[in-house]
């Protein structure tokens, strides 16, 4: 198998180390899937609750392999003219205007319509050539010389039809443009798709991908993540904070705090020069962790229990 494209991704342990030095602590499962994706040249479909580092994984990966990251943010109504390519209509128009005189010269002496057409045909489709092609993210990723990382973010937000559009790109790494033919990837990029599971993706899309589900991390892992992201926070404080977040996730909340919220909270505690996690401090800063008023109220009601979890 060709590990040659991305030599940095040829060994699970090496991946874990490289990611860690890039500031992303990953489990063996994540590392395994990244390794398989590089070796099997298959896209990775990452699922999981918001804020567990799905997008971050792709970014870090780009950093580790030292290739450009091409990002396509999906939304309802995204279509091929925004994702794949578009013709530069303005430029085409402008050029036809500018070249009017040249056209006169070319057609000079031609008799009748059919002869003029004959002459024009000799010049081929000048206006539908790569010079007039505006590459959008997917095509850009195909055109990158030395591979790269393509991130298709929140694919579940895009329409069902868009998924079908992606199939060609994902399985064959090529884009078909009717006017030009098929454009093959110069060097196959690493592809990551993320999904928040707001809807079921089509089987055809799923079939082409390796699957990676990232759940909320364990206490130990999250403590490591916080420690690497917010090194200024004292070790004991980090432990308390992570245990508190884990306790809060077990409550019935509208939106459970994710890793990114934990990190934000840790950062704000550093700013506040907090030494110890006590109820007053928690109450004051809970709004960093929880994004809904009703969630904050729920958590405040359970505060003694949560603080007990921190102590234990």
């Amino acid at each position, binding site marked *: *198998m060709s590990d040659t494209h991305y030599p940095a991704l040829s060994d*699970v342990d090496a991946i874990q180390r490289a990611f860690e030095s890039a500031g992303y602590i990953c489990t*063996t*499962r994540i590392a*395994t*899937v990244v*390794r*398989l994706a590089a*070796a*099997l040249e*298959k896209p*990775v479909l990452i*699922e999981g609750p918001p804020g567990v580092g799905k997008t971050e994984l792709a970014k870090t990966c780009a950093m580790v392999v030292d290739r450009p990251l091409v990002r396509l943010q999906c939304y*309802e*109504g995204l279509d091929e003219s925004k994702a794949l390519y578009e013709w530069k*209509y*303005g430029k085409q*128009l402008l050029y036809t205007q500018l070249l009017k005189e040249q056209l006169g010269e070319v057609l000079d002496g031609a008799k009748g319509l059919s002869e003029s057409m004959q002459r024009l045909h000799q010049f081929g489709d000048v206006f539908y050539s790569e010079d007039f092609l505006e590459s959008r993210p997917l095509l850009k990723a195909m055109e990158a010389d030395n591979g790269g990382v393509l991130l298709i973010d929140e694919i579940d937000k895009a*329409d*069902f*039809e868009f998924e079908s559009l992606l199939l060609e790109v994902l399985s064959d790494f090529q884009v078909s443009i009717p006017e030009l033919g098929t454009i093959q990837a110069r060097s196959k990029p690493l592809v990551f798709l993320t999904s928040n*599971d707001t*809807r*079921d993706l089509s089987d055809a899309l*799923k*079939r082409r991908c*390796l*699957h*990676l*589900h990232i759940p909320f991390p364990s206490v130990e892992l999250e403590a490591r993540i916080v420690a690497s992201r917010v090194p200024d926070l004292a070790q004991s404080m980090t432990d308390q904070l992570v245990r508190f977040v884990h306790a809060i996730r077990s409550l019935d909340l509208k939106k459970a705090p994710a890793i990114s919220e934990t990190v934000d909270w840790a950062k704000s505690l550093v700013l506040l020069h907090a030494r110890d996690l006590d109820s007053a401090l928690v109450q004051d800063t809970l709004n960093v962790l929880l994004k809904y008023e009703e969630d904050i109220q729920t958590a405040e009601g359970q505060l003694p229990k949560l603080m007990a979890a921190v102590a234990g």
Partner: protein
Amino acid sequence: MATERVDSTLSSTSSDQLLAFIQYLRGKKIPVSPADTLDAIGVAELVGYDDKVLLRDGLASALAKSRHELTLFEAAFEDYFQLPTERFGPSGSNPSEQPNTPSAPDAAPPPDGIVNQTQEDDPLEGLRGNALFDALESRDESALSVAIETAAAEAKVEEISLFTQRGQYVRKILDALGDEALREAAIEFEQSEPAAFEAVQALREQLRERVRDRVERAYLIHASAATEDLLDESLSKLKLGNVDHSQMARLKRLMDRMARKLAARHGRRRRKYRRGKLHVGETVRRAISTDGIPFHPRWRKIERKRPQIMAICDVSGSVAAYAKFLLMFLYALQDVLPRTRSFAFSAALGEVSDLFASLPVEEAIERVNLKYGGATDYGRALQDFSELALAEINRATTVIILGDARNNQADLRVDLLAEIKARSKQVIWLNPESTRLWGTGDSEMLLVKRHCHLVRECNNLKQLERIIDKLLSDKR
């Protein structure tokens, strides 16, 4: 069981076992396509079979396609590969080193003694040279395993599909192994040489034990799934009044799966066909940048009235056997179509949507039964329903009534039903009674029929699925 599976690696390669594992996954309701299988083999080649965790994570990425499937996959993987990594390793070709092969120790108590004895005894001499007998007597594990595997393949044990077939396959494999010769010898010795008879019988029992294990394993891998399917299939055709308590869990699982399937089939295509006429103003405005040439046509959107379902369920004594099922159906329906409003009645009628939304299915049904159970009065129920919801019924509303239309000779208030029909998109009456009983006794079904768009017999899952499917397709 774990130890027994070791054996199957002995005479087969790892990728064969990977295929068997995939078969096992399919039995656990994880759909694995041939393309997935190829991916899995690719993954396994890459990560190797030595590191179990690595193998699990790798295979999971290729085979488990949702969180639900991931949980199933991990459980299945643990079940299947309980033993440490070696058992899945390519080293499996060396059987004699495996310490815990199934039938070796306890099943045959007198091995050594008998072997010694037989050396002095003449009668067994006649059997020597019989490959099977030699292998059994000298306890040659590898030869036995190979012989059993070959015989198993010959008997096509992989085709086993029902647990009742196990005996039959044991017989077939024994025959293929050449047990016949041993049996004849045993019969011969029975009268004349009791010691030799004992010895041969003990060896045969050992052999039988091994073969039974082999068949059992084949059954677990290939047929337990088929048996499950068979049970599911028959349950989905069984009249729901006859479903007994022990099958309730299975029924609920089937219903959940059905709801998921229907949701998946009808949940998507949200935006399609919403494009309306050309939006001239917007198109012209956008054409300014391209010198008036409209490269980017804009379209109006078609506003669609969102369909709504109102379901009314009879929970009275006459349909008691079905009431639970009908409520389960309502519950599942509300899951699939969030805008469903559910009502329950026997005499008085009330809305139960909130109950369904907030409680788990069993509890919700219990509460509903408690609150609305009693003797039927369709007239009163329809009256209540009209007061509660008639104003909200419009051309996008589908009204489903679940009940037997047996009204104890009282007035069913067909006039109200007619009014509901006039206002709604469609009125569907689902009756758990079979069509032949409609109109007999106090059944008002024939009268009701005239005031509904559709009446159907509905007393098992198959019919139910078909009706909901049709309902959901119609609403577009």
